[in-house]
């Protein structure tokens, strides 16, 4: 399966993240799964004219390829000219290249939230960059390729959203496609592969005991749950970050900071400070997905009243001050 990769209005972090794939080295794993990069801007030998030749052949349908992976927002400005990103050595807007290549790709993958929805580039007041995603403009369908776009393989754009993407989300989706194809039923409402987006970040969170008892962190580096005060959206964000560890053993929550829901459209402009939980009458506005507010309030009151001292005290310090009790035999 041949993969052609382009980068535009983004940071390149999804590629850098992908290179962290474990346990096997990325190149070995992809090769043995029958996946190769026809060209990748950060990795391939071909530069300048050699690279443009590969792209031109693909865009003209002379050289077949399977997956077009695009990393970075589509910059349509200024005034629709695409001049905010002209292809180096060629002078044509990247948006034009993407439109031409997408016509011949069997599948089109948006790598990262910028590519899927527009991301941070689209959040400047008034969006002077005219930035958008491949098939979404924030949470509205449309984007560069249009709401009706379907690639020759019969799918809309596959949105591997995340800022950045986990290496496994990209590699597993490519491997699923190479193994048995992808169907619309493999994607969620925003085009995200269910293989990582049918979970919530909350699932498997190492702070779950604090969550259960509403024992909340009050300041940075506290061990408690980050939902009540520090802006955590793990109970609303679709991704498997706490089941599929990052960089060996990590996740945002394990790192001590809030999930900012970077797989969701519009995450970059939450309408409040990223690291503060907006509240109404002392109750967080953004409550867990699927949970009626009254239930949450009742449960929270109950669990707060039942919080063990160990959990309550440990929640507001940066290391365990009360260890779980050890039961002695026969007692």
């Amino acid at each position, binding site marked *: 399966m041949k993969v052609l990769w382009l*980068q*535009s*209005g*983004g*940071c*390149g*972090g*999804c590629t*850098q*993240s992908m*290179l*962290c794939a474990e346990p*096997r*080295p*990325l*190149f*070995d794993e992809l090769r043995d799964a029958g996946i190769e990069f026809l060209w990748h*801007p*950060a*990795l*391939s*030998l*071909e*530069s300048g004219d050699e*690279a*443009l030749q590969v792209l031109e052949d693909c865009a003209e349908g002379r050289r077949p390829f399977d997956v077009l992976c695009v990393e970075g927002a589509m910059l349509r400005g*200024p005034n629709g000219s695409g001049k905010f*990103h002209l*292809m*180096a*050595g*060629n002078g044509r807007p990247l948006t034009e290249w993407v439109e031409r290549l997408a016509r011949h790709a069997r599948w089109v993958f948006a790598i990262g939230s910028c590519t899927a929805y527009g*991301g*941070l580039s689209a959040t400047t*007041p008034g969006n*002077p*960059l005219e930035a958008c995603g491949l098939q979404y403009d924030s949470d509205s369908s449309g984007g560069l390729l249009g709401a009706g776009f379907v690639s020759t393989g019969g799918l809309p754009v596959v949105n591997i959203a995340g800022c*950045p993407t986990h290496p496994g989300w990209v590699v597993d989706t490519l491997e699923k496609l190479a193994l048995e194809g992808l169907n619309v039923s493999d994607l969620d409402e925003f085009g995200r592969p269910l293989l990582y987006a049918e979970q919530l970040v909350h699932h498997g969170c190492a702070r779950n005991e604090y969550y259960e008892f509403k024992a909340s962190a009050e*300041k*940075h*580096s506290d061990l408690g749950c980050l939902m009540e005060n520090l802006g955590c959206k793990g109970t609303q964000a679709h991704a498997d970050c706490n089941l599929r560890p*990052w*960089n*060996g*053993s*990590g*996740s*945002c*929550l*394990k*790192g*001590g*900071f*809030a999930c*900012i829901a970077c797989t969701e459209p519009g995450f970059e402009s939450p309408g409040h*400070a*990223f*690291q503060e939980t907006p509240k109404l009458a002392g109750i967080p506005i953004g409550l867990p997905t699927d949970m009626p507010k009254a239930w949450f309030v009742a449960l929270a009151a109950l669990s707060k009243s039942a919080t063990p001292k160990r959990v309550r005290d440990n929640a507001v310090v*940066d*290391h365990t001050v009360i260890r779980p009790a050890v039961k002695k035999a026969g007692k």
Partner: protein
Amino acid sequence: MKRIQLGPFNRVEGDLEVSLDVEDGAVLAARVNSPLFRGFEQVLVGRVAEDALAIVPRICGICSVAQSAAAASALADLAGIEPPPNGVLARHLIQATENLADHLTHFYLFFMPDFARSAYADRSWHAAVSARFMAVKGAAPGPVLQARARFFNLTGFLAGRWPHTLALQAGGSTKAMTAAERIRVLALLREFRAFLEGVLLGDSLEAFAELAGWDALLHWADGREADFPLFLRAAGDLGLEGVGRASDRFLSYGAYGIFSAGVWQPGMAVESLDPGRISEDTRHAWLADGPALSPAAGETVVNAEKAGAYTWCKAPRYAGQVIETGALARQLVTGNRLVGDLVAQFGGSVTGRVVARMVELATIVPAMERWVKAIVPGEAFCNPVELPESGQGVGLVEAARGSLGHWLSVKRGRIERYQIIAPTTWNFSPRDGDGTPGPLEQALVGLPAGEGALPTVQHVVRSFDPCMVCTVH
């Protein structure tokens, strides 16, 4: 005279175009174009000050932590506070992990594949170099990716993830390392050390760090079976120690409390750093014209149709002078003897820039081992921070590829101005208002180019380890 456009200039971070005026097979003049505009300085305006910590890492996927560190430093400067000792050590460790991983990525994935090109097929070293370093398919990239991924497991423990962590805060770090994690992080450092000593250098880090001059380096490399000595063999044959000289003025903001800050110029004592002498010029960028401004008063206003402009990159200058930054600059300013001898003999060069990165790998890994041991589990990693409603802050840090500065101004709790000068903004700057070319533009003049020329231009451009996405923030 013929003008040739090189692009997409790949195996750099982001998009790059280099335009060369060529006559009689040599470069007469070069212009460097950063063809992508990102607009992060505008994204930040109007946001709550702490939001910078979530936004700026996303400027860059390869120096994300350096961006975080610069913002955290700028906010700490604004608040007039410092992190506790554990917080400082944690920040050093997270930043050093990224910097050293970047050095490795640069050497193996971005820089060395050009030596495997068929243009060098007649060279004695070519077979060995292509077998190791061919892009994607060589023998080296697999084990390198594995070593890099394992090394980044440090960030799994210390920063949650990489890239784009929110662990670095003005008051320190959100993640307090546990006693158990301290042991596992030391084990990861041992694993990375073993890779560097066994595969990259073929010697202990300490023995390599002791090398004090060019002759000593060549003697050390002679007959040594490892990847960096193999580079020295190819580079020596091509004379790359004498290729790629830029302005030979070097800037470092200092790093980790072990590398000093300052400005290095030939034949002079290292000058202490005065951030007030930094300015940015927009004459040749697609940005509104005006006098060169201090970044504390800087503006970024798009003018996409401006005559005479050829890039989205501003031209930063120090005391009006063109400046190079990066590992070479850091090691010169801090007085490393090997790097000092190389520059004394040849000026800045392709080989010098690569050697300086190796020096950093060899000296920073032992420092990381010391930092982990110095961490005291149970003591604070983060101090509370009360940000003033209004004020200014500056954060000056070193990313892998050089000096990174954030200038922040806050009014009524909101960001009023945010200006960034990234390392590659210095190195790949266009001509300034006086028409003086930037460092890379100078370094390319006189090199072979055009039909049938060796890929020397490729080596020189990539020797700076450019990060274009930062450049055009």
